[in-house]
């Protein structure tokens, strides 16, 4: 029973079908590459129309503009991989941003590291609430985080009232985080790249992180394999909350002023980026790198439209189309991969 030889013969039987499967498999595996290519295409086409689009300032803007969403995507990706969803990320970001703003308003010399710890802490707290409701009460995460989306935003609104914290209240050193650069690379971009890099690596290399994929791929099998499903899902929500909290501080450093509406609607932008980035909406597969590239792509398309003087009203429609396109693409690919994989084995089985 030589399977290698059988496979060879199987290819004789249906070379085109197997090749399709091969290409499709690679496409799934190299989704990040595909997005990167799409990104280059958008940048290239836009630059052909207006070369200013690839100026240093413009590229810095693209990177900084995508940084916050990319950062949020770290947590959202982990949650979605476990077959859950976190709709509250925008509200957590808003709450954290307003907290940081208020702290600076009242204590202009508040130590910078503590501010970030504070932002992290408030996000963490929100994540604990989400995680506990999902895992202890077994309420579907879609409902839980839809609820906390309004609750956190509501608390923010009650607390802030009509108050707005302006840029003049923020210390220069804090504003610098949003605008400063190292060797022409904006701080925000560096922070996002480091965060995405670390998360991508951990999701690949850390045992407990692999459980996220296992849980999302088959919750029932995960339970049978002795994986602490509830604990892992809880952790995913806490990470998402903490990351959203940090994102709040970053957001404020970039935008410079904050009221109770900061980050409204971000949850959908993040989910769009995550899905465009190749993370399966029903869990089990995807990478943070892909999601971050998805965020960059969506942001770049938005900016490109302005440059080529297409009404920015088109931005939403185009982003939506891209989202639908990405999901359709996934379906078509997986539909061509799975039958081909099955053909491969049945040809093999028949020849054993």
């Amino acid at each position, binding site marked *: 029973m030589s399977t290698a030889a059988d496979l060879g013969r199987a290819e004789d039987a249906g070379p085109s079908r197997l090749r399709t499967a091969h290409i499709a498999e690679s496409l799934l595996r190299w989704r990040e590459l595909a997005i990167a290519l799409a990104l280059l295409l958008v940048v290239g086409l836009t630059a052909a129309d207006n070369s200013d689009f690839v100026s240093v300032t413009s590229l810095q803007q693209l990177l900084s503009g995508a940084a916050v969403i990319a950062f949020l995507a770290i947590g959202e990706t982990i949650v979605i991989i476990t077959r859950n969803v976190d709709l509250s990320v925008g509200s957590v970001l808003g709450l954290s941003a307003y907290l940081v703003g208020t702290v600076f308003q009242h204590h202009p010399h508040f130590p910078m590291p503590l501010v970030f710890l504070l932002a992290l802490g408030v996000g963490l707290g929100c994540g604990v609430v989400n995680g506990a409701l999902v895992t202890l009460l077994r309420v579907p995460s879609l409902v839980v985080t839809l609820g906390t989306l309004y609750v956190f935003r509501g608390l923010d609104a009650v607390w802030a009232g009509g108050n707005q914290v302006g840029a003049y209240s923020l210390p220069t050193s804090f504003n610098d985080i949003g605008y400063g650069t190292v060797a022409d690379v904006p701080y925000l971009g560096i922070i996002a790249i480091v965060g995405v890099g670390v998360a991508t690596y951990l999701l690949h290399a850390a045992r407990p992180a*692999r459980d996220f994929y*296992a849980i999302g791929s*088959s919750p029932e099998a995960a339970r049978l*394999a*002795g994986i602490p499903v509830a604990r892992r899902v809880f952790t995913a929500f806490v990470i998402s909350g903490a990351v959203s909290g940090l994102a709040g501080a970053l957001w404020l450093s970039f935008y410079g002023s904050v009221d109770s509406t900061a980050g409204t609607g971000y949850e959908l932008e993040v989910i769009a980026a995550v899905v465009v980035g190749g993370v399966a909406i029903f869990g089990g597969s995807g990478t943070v790198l892909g999601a971050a590239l998805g965020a960059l792509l969506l942001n770049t398309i938005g900016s490109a439209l302005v440059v080529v003087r297409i009404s920015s009203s088109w931005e939403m429609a185009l982003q939506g189309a891209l989202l639908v396109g990405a999901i359709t693409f996934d379906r078509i690919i997986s539909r061509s991969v799975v039958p081909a*994989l099955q053909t491969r084995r049945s040809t093999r089985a028949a020849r054993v």
Partner: protein
Amino acid sequence: MTERLSASPESAGGTPVLVAEHLVKSFGAVRALIDGQFELTQGEIHALVGENGAGKSTLVKVIAGVHRPDGGHLLLDGEIADFASAAESQRAGIAVIFQEPLLFPDLSVAENIFIERQPVLRGRRIDWRRMQSQAAALFERLGVRIDPRRPARGLSIADQQLVEIAKAISRQARVIVMDEPTAALTPSEVERLFRVIDTLRLEGASVIFITHRLDEVFAFCDRVTVMRDGRYVLTSVAAEITTEAMIRAMVGRDTEALFAKTATAAGEVVLEVEHLTREGVFTDVSLSVRRGEIVALAGLVGAGRSEVARAIFGIDRRDAGSVRVNGKALRSGSPAAAMDAGIALVPEDRRQQGLVLDLSIERNVALASLKRVTHLQLILPGNERRFARAWTTRLQVKAQSLSSAASTLSGGNQQKVVLAKWLARSPAVLIVDEPTRGIDVGTKAEVHRLLSDLAASGVAVLMISSELPEVIGMADRVIVLFEGRVAGRFDRAEADEDAIMHAATGLAGLEVA
């Protein structure tokens, strides 16, 4: 009761590894396991056989730590083992391979084997290369070729089982339980599986092997234990028992008083199925049902009976063959066409497929006959209620109110609602799949009487049933399926439990087209 070959599990002389003593397990009113006994010795392959519902799977799930017994206990190496979870059973060195393994489709084969135990490098980062080479080494030891890097999605069931076996070996499992692993395999896959099992045995593992194929017991197993109706019946060295004795032990039971169909004169053929084939599911099934007749489709779970019914009704497409009702050919894959032609299907799983549980009883009854209660496409509630009342009264559905949800009814009354839904269409052909599963004895008799009356009124009834007494009591003719093929046809006079079991376990040979 038939004779017992031995009162307690007869030891083959080896050291007992796993012993089950008087296990009891009930689910609500259903007593799945009344007296489960089993003894597995070091290095043996021990077959566990019995009819559907004999309690084999429940016994396995207790061993697997999925269920906790209500009474009795397990001894592992002579010590009481009480598993609170599947993980605990696994840690104790027990691996259960279910008929359709639960893998992680998105993860690679290697990671499926090593999940939670991935080999790590310094800094606890996963050593992917070592994980893949270890998986490859496991497959090599088993003598099979599966690419450790490919995703588990798309693996054949046989390969999925091998992944589970590789996982079991990597965990150094000493007891490997296989729940009907061969049911879904092709002959060459079965052969490969047995080579693998032999390897395991040589390496000192003990195997519990559940099967419906008695020839496998003789060909591959050292000993065999028979269960029936949740009880231990006998254990024997496989070479010392005959097929007949094994089948007698499997089916022998106290004869229940069951309603028997009244004899009717069968009329012209109504349903005619010829050479029906659905690739990989069933092959070349031909049958006919005449007016006034009840034809039973018997066989073991997984023999393809429900699938045949689904194909006749058009839920699944057929790959070859024809279905005719009153001489008129039916389009493949169209339940609407089947309904128009007068076929009704009462499915096996009434909660999932037969009813819309959250809808009211009256809505459920009228669901298949909406044309009769609508005007200008609008459902008239008064019509619907009158319509439903007529049928529920006729079938004596016991319900507080017709407007309460179908989920509030008992199993037997739910089944009557499903029957009412279809009878309301005055079908020419009624297909019922396990019509009395999980319903109480009284209602069971009512359902039997109802089916008998329907046949008498000229309906052609095709009944799928796993309960042999029901088959024998109700059917004018019995058609037995084994692995998707017809393995026996019996008239009322010839149909007895032994003959049907013989055919259902593949011992009577298959019909050659």
